[in-house]
């Protein structure tokens, strides 16, 4: 044991300069990562932090790929001239000394830094604890890969060459493995889910395999110095890791895959749905799409209370009198039907007022004009046909319509409430919002153009905002992804790509008889700033932030004094399919419509 410590002390002493740089890099990143997101009124600091967050991980990586080879090659394994070979140091003691160095100098500080950042990000202790094994695995995996390459080489130059070969080889081999696996699985249906938890599980399994194989090869090389065998084992291991990363079939989080979520929601038979109209799409859209897009409207009956329906996918075949069938498919909605408010949609999402009543008690909405859309009981979707001529052939004519649509049912749920003051936090599981400021103008790059829908109300709000009349609340959204957190369904994963899409904010004043003001627009740049700092090197997606400005109608200071910010989250309740089969359906006639995007003064 003495010689193990002796070796460790020697390595630290010899590499004290690089080790100091490594510690300093982690310390700086940890401090910035931990404290910068909570600096509510320091946009300049925040911008600096973002810049550091872009540069520091590269520096940290650089230090890592310098520090580890230097430590390993202090007593090289592959060099027959190595000093230690003829000195009374056992291979086991040397392995233990190097392992201790990697653990104490490389892995523990990096993990500690990440844990500090996660703790300060507002995650609950339980989630931070859940993150530790994941972080540990990732840091250990990267460390072992670098250490194995260092153990196979005699000096840093050779290590660098080996590293480049490894990266190129990895790229080529993973392409090959993926194409091979996709060929093998081409016949399987639904073998791979899209859920975040599932994908993270594959990542975790691959990381665990990397740690096991990397550690094993490293130990083998130290204990036997049989380099050829070790290299062979490493190559086999790399192939194994690639396969595991692609075909790992189990979720490590123990959650359920998204297919089972459907069981919670309404069934196909519960809801009646009928096609009521097909007409040319009249809203703003990219010019190239203009005459290829139709809008299909469905009437819905027996829709459960406090639910929102949305067409996820589907296809319709339109067959006019000429007998030629024109196929179209549903794409993302351009009509302004929105579940959230991120696109500046003015309408109150259906089901929200019921959910608010349910979760907050009796409420009195102060901006009821926005409530008009609550009565919407229909479904709209855009139908894209292949050629403009296909759409034109059907316009103003009776056609036979057949097809199938997949509909998702959503509901709103109270996620969190916090006092309306700077620094207060809304927390809901992995995500959360920190209120940066209320009312004032945040000097930052947040003033971005609201991409309007056809809803004119949002435009008016923006104008009010421009005139300084609107009540603004600046928030910073935290988004975390943890492999060991029970997995999220595919819908949640998509929502996270547009973080404001599935959230609705209200201002609630209980002192004034549960008065509620609905947020009318969310002004954000939809760019997810990554602020993982010490850890970004390890996982760029584990922790991220993005800022937004919530725009409410003008409110008095007196009203705002006792207000709370309330957040409702949209969750998918389930999905169902409906078959469409209508004969002699009259498609709406063509009409000329100016391109709103082009003519918009914005």
């Amino acid at each position, binding site marked *: 044991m003495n010689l193990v410590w002796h070796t460790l002390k020697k390595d630290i002493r010899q590499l004290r300069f690089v080790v100091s740089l490594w510690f300093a890099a982690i310390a700086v990143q940890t401090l910035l990562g931990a404290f910068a997101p909570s600096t509510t009124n320091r946009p300049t600091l925040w911008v600096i932090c973002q810049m550091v967050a872009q540069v520091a991980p590269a520096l940290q990586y650089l230090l890592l790929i310098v520090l580890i080879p230097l430590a390993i090659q202090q007593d090289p394994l592959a060099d027959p*001239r190595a000093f230690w070979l003829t000195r009374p140091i*056992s291979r086991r003691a040397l392995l233990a000394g190097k392992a201790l160095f990697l653990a104490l100098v490389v892995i523990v500080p990096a993990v500690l830094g990440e844990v500090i950042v996660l703790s300060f990000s507002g995650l609950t202790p339980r989630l931070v604890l859940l993150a530790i094994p994941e972080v540990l695995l990732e840091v250990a995996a990267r460390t072992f890969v670098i250490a194995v390459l260092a153990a196979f080489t005699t000096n840093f130059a050779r290590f660098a060459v080996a590293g480049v070969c490894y990266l190129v080889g990895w790229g080529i081999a993973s392409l090959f493995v993926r194409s091979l696996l996709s060929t093998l699985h081409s016949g399987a249906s639904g073998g791979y889910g899209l859920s975040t938890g599932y994908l993270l599980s594959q990542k975790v399994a691959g990381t665990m395999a990397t740690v096991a194989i990397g550690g094993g090869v490293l130990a083998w090389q130290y204990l036997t110095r049989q380099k050829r065998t070790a290299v062979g084992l490493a190559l086999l291991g790399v192939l194994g890791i690639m396969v595991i990363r692609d075909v790992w079939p189990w979720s490590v989080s123990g959650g359920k895959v998204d297919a089972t979520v459907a069981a919670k929601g309404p069934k196909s038979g519960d809801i009646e749905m009928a096609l009521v109209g097909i007409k040319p799409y009249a809203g703003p859209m990219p010019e190239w799409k203009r005459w290829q897009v139709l809008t299909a409207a469905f009437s819905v009956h027996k829709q459960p209370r406090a639910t929102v329906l949305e067409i996820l996918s589907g296809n319709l075949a339109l067959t006019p009198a000429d007998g030629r069938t024109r196929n179209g498919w549903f794409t993302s909605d351009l009509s302004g039907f929105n579940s959230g408010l991120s696109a500046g949609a003015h309408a109150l999402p259906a089901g929200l007022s019921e959910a608010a009543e349910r979760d907050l008690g009796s409420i009195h909405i102060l901006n009821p004009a926005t409530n008009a859309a609550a009565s919407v009981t229909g479904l709209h979707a855009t139908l894209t046909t292949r050629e403009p001529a296909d759409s034109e052939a059907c316009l103003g004519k009776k056609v036979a319509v057949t097809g199938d649509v997949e509909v998702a049912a959503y509901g709103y749920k109270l996620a969190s409430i916090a006092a309306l003051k700077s620094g207060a936090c809304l927390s809901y599981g992995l995500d959360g919002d920190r209120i940066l400021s209320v009312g004032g103008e945040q000097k930052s790059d947040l003033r971005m153009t609201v991409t309007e829908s056809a809803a004119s109300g949002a435009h008016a709000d923006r104008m009010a905002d421009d005139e300084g009349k609107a009540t603004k609340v600046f928030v910073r959204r935290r988004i975390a992804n943890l492999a060991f957190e029970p997995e999220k369904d595919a819908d949640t994963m998509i929502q996270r790509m547009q973080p404001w899409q599935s959230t609705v904010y209200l201002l609630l004043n209980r002192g004034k008889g549960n008065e509620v003001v609905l947020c009318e627009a969310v002004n954000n740049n939809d760019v997810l700033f990554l602020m993982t700092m010490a850890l970004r090197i390890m996982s760029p997606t584990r922790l991220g932030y993005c800022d937004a400005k919530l725009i409410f109608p003008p409110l008095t200071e007196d009203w705002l004094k006792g207000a709370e910010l309330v957040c409702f989250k949209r969750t998918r309740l389930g999905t169902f399919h409906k078959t469409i089969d209508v004969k002699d359906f009259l498609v709406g006639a063509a009409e000329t419509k100016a391109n709103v995007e082009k003519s918009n003064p914005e």
Partner: protein
Amino acid sequence: MSDVIETRNLSRRFGKKEAVHDLTIRVPEGRIFAFLGPNGAGKSTTIKLLMNILEPTAGEALVFGRDARQLGPADFQQIGYVAEDQAAPDSMTVQQFMDYVQPMYPTWDPAFCAGLLKQFDLPLDRKLKDLSRGMRMKAVLLSSLAYRPRLLVLDEPFTGLDPLVRDEFIRGILELTAQEHWTVFVSSHDIDEVERLADWVGIINDGRLMECESVESIQGRFRQIQFAVTDDAVLPGNLPPNWLLAEKEGRAVRFVESRYQEGRSEAAVLGVFPSCGEIGAAPMSLREIFLALARVYRFAAKEGRS
């Protein structure tokens, strides 16, 4: 007297090239064994096999009676190894180097180390990479002597050393081995220096051991024979095999007698050249013997290739 080093039919192959072939040597305790051979003869490979740096492809190497592949820390605590191409922790100062090495050896003698430091005149505060080649070699040697090893293995230790340092180095080893009764196994090109050190010599060529005996014996066995013959005399084709590198230059005939026996060797000359003049039998230095043998091996190799 037990053998500190013993090899039995030791072989090591690198691909198609057999670097060491069927090598059998014994080095008893207390002996200074010089392992000589031309470049690429297999000296360093043999030493690396003995030190468990390489593994043999056949045969075995024993050090202190243990299979060299099993040599562990306890064995290396009794072995000092200094090689020309050995890597050392160059970023350490001499003092740090000593501090690093010392805890590995329970028998480390600080007083002895201090004495050697003084004797070798090493600057404690200088980094190894900043030292001259000779000084660096001395530092490594010191780190291999201060624990009084039973076996000192030196692989080309004199390469790159200037004559003065070389002399100091050899004197240091000679003094110490005399005091401590160490066994020394040294390989070198510098035959003159080795001659001062060694009491036993092994000559290896092309991976094969050609000679292995005491320096006294080999020097007694080899003589440079020279005598005069008539102008028309010619060298016969069937000279005795122990007459090496025979040549006639003018009236002078020279060869190396590899089995010299006073009286008998002269009689053998007279048997071949009855009318020759006075026969001179000059003793040969180890260097001369080695060079003669090296030429013989090279000639034999050419013959073999042709």
